[in-house]
């Protein structure tokens, strides 16, 4: 069989990082990225890109922990290199604060982030409405820089990138041997997955360079994440809301909630509003499926449904998807060599 051709559909953080992993681990194959949207118009571009995992109810904790650890380790190395600023990756310290005691005192990721510890009463004085808190140092991936850096790495690895709207995965069967589906919220329509639903998030990206620490309310609704040039203020979690249009009332509500956590934000300038639809699911769909029509087979690796936790686990799931692609290629090469006999 000639060099196996792999198509990755989707160019958000999951699509691009998966394509890169495949190019790194399956050197015999040729990889192509197909997407109708690229940075700065992907869901990933609305996200702050902070590495604080979301817990998927349907995935074993040890698997989520492994994904997070792989992602954190990978980004940590880049964050301390000369490439860090171009890749948009940097360390950031801060606090997660709770009005009510959290369900678990120690989240599963507490030993992966840096310097995790419970906040003292003195530190909590800065947050008079909150009774409990955790302090730690983690990583942030700024978008667009991170996506643009991934694209640059992909091109250097010989990966082709095309703008193309894929209406049906089957349409790729004549050009590609393996398809990887990283379409995020687009999978709802593309493969008809009704278990996938949007959780709408509106955020503000503001100029407030004096804010150097992150602050997150443990309820996940209010957060302040300082990036390289802008601070992301959030947010909302609106299940089944498909609207990508910014809502002015929501903007004011987010700003007020963030200012009550960090009053100096009243001086923030140049407020930009973004909306993203978190591609949410009970668990990430990370599995192989073989499509077949009229005796022709097309192996598909699904890697979508990362919801609120895409950045936190993207490298871990990309590696797993690449592993599954490797298995597909091996199976195809095995059957094609059998066919030669």
């Amino acid at each position, binding site marked *: 069989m000639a060099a196996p051709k792999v198509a990755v559909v989707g160019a958000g953080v999951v699509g691009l990082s998966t394509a890169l992993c495949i190019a790194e681990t399956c050197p015999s194959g040729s990889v192509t990225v197909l997407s109708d949207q690229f940075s700065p118009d992907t869901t990933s571009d609305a996200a702050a890109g902070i590495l604080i995992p979301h817990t998927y109810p349907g995935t074993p904790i040890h698997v989520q922990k492994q994904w997070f650890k792989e992602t954190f380790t990978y980004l940590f190395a880049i964050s301390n290199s*000369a490439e860090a600023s171009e890749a948009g990756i*940097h360390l950031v310290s801060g606090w997660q604060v709770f009005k009510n005691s959290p369900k678990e005192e120690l989240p599963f990721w507490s030993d992966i982030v840096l310097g995790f510890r419970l906040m003292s009463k*003195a530190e909590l004085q800065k947050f008079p409405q909150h009774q409990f808190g955790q302090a730690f140092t983690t990583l942030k991936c700024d978008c667009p820089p991170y996506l643009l850096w991934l694209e640059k790495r992909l091109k250097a690895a010989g990966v082709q990138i095309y703008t193309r709207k894929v209406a049906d995965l089957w349409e790729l069967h004549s050009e590609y041997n393996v398809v990887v589906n990283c379409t995020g919220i687009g999978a709802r329509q593309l493969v008809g997955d009704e278990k996938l639903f949007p959780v709408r998030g509106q955020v503000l990206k503001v100029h407030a360079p004096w804010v*150097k620490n992150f602050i997150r309310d443990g309820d996940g609704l209010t957060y302040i994440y300082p990036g390289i040039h802008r601070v992301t203020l959030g947010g909302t979690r609106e299940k089944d809301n498909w609207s990508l249009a910014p809502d002015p009332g929501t903007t004011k509500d987010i700003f007020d909630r963030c200012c009550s956590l960090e009053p*100096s934000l009243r001086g923030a300038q140049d407020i930009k509003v973004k909306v993203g639809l978190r591609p949410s699911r009970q668990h990430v769909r990370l599995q192989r499926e073989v499509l077949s029509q009229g005796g022709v087979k097309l192996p598909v690796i699904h890697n979508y449904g990362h919801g609120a936790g895409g950045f936190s686990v993207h490298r871990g799931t990309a590696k797993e998807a690449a592993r599954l692609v490797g298995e597909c290629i091996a199976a195809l090469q095995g059957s094609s060599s059998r066919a030669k006999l």
Partner: protein
Amino acid sequence: MRVAIIGAGVIGLSTALCIHEQYHGLVPSLEMEVYADRFTPHTTSDGAAGLWQPYLKTFDYLLGHLDSAAAKEMGLFLISGYNLFTQPVPDPSWKNIVLGFRNLTPKELELFPGYSYGWFNTALMLELLGLAWLQESGDPRGQRRRVCPAHRAASLSPQVFAQGADVVINCTGVRAGELQPDPELQPGRGQIIKVLAPWVKHFIITHDIKSGIYNSPYVIPGEFTVLGGIYQHGNWNEENSAQDHKTVWENCCRLLPTLQKAKIVQEWSGLRPARPCVRLERETLRHGHSQAEVIHNYGHGGFGITIHWGCAMAAARLFGTILQEKKLASPPQPRL
């Protein structure tokens, strides 16, 4: 009651502000003037990175302003970061004053090869930004500022006494010796590079027992990121040195490799007003039949911003003592 403050760095301005806040209500005739030949952005304070590694009263004062709308104008904000050592050291006396003090974990130390021990804490930055705020604040009715860029006060006595000052506050920093000889005061020359590196969100201060304080690289983010690590005792040269630039750049890039891509925006040299201890005391100077009270407040070395408010309050207390003495000594007299 005429008060002349000489010096418009962080010490001069904060002392002026502190005295004004405490006494303008008690002493309706209080008139204050600030004399200086250099104002922001040309003072020693302007080159300071502005990081606050703690001292008591200043921390409480600044913390109280943190949530105010003024914080942004003051250039006041919280920042977390690292103090690095090549060997274990005892915890500092200020560990309970800062927020969240702890030792560094092994994984964190992996970031800093060559350092085997360290602290993490959240501190306050007063970027000088703050100096412009200090200069603008205060009751415009009660406090006049005399900008005298051409005047170098050649000595304490003739100039300010000729103006009829009752109290002189000497906040002249490294050049206090020109007003009144002080062999204990020496310049501690520093040189910094300001770069654009907005992805750096932590301060990093290294300590080398052998090379001495401030002679070990440090990285302090603010509006720009300040790279430093030079301390030359007795060196009056305010020109930038190419050798010092090389030292600072190479050491800081080794400490934080991401800086290699940072764009250099400015180089700056300054003279820390170094003294074995801060001179914070009263002195009575006599000229003919009149006398003036002097309060000295200079010699803050590399930690002027750190202790400025505590010193300003101490100076204000000395001022209060002078007021009491004048009331006790004689009733108000017509001015000669």
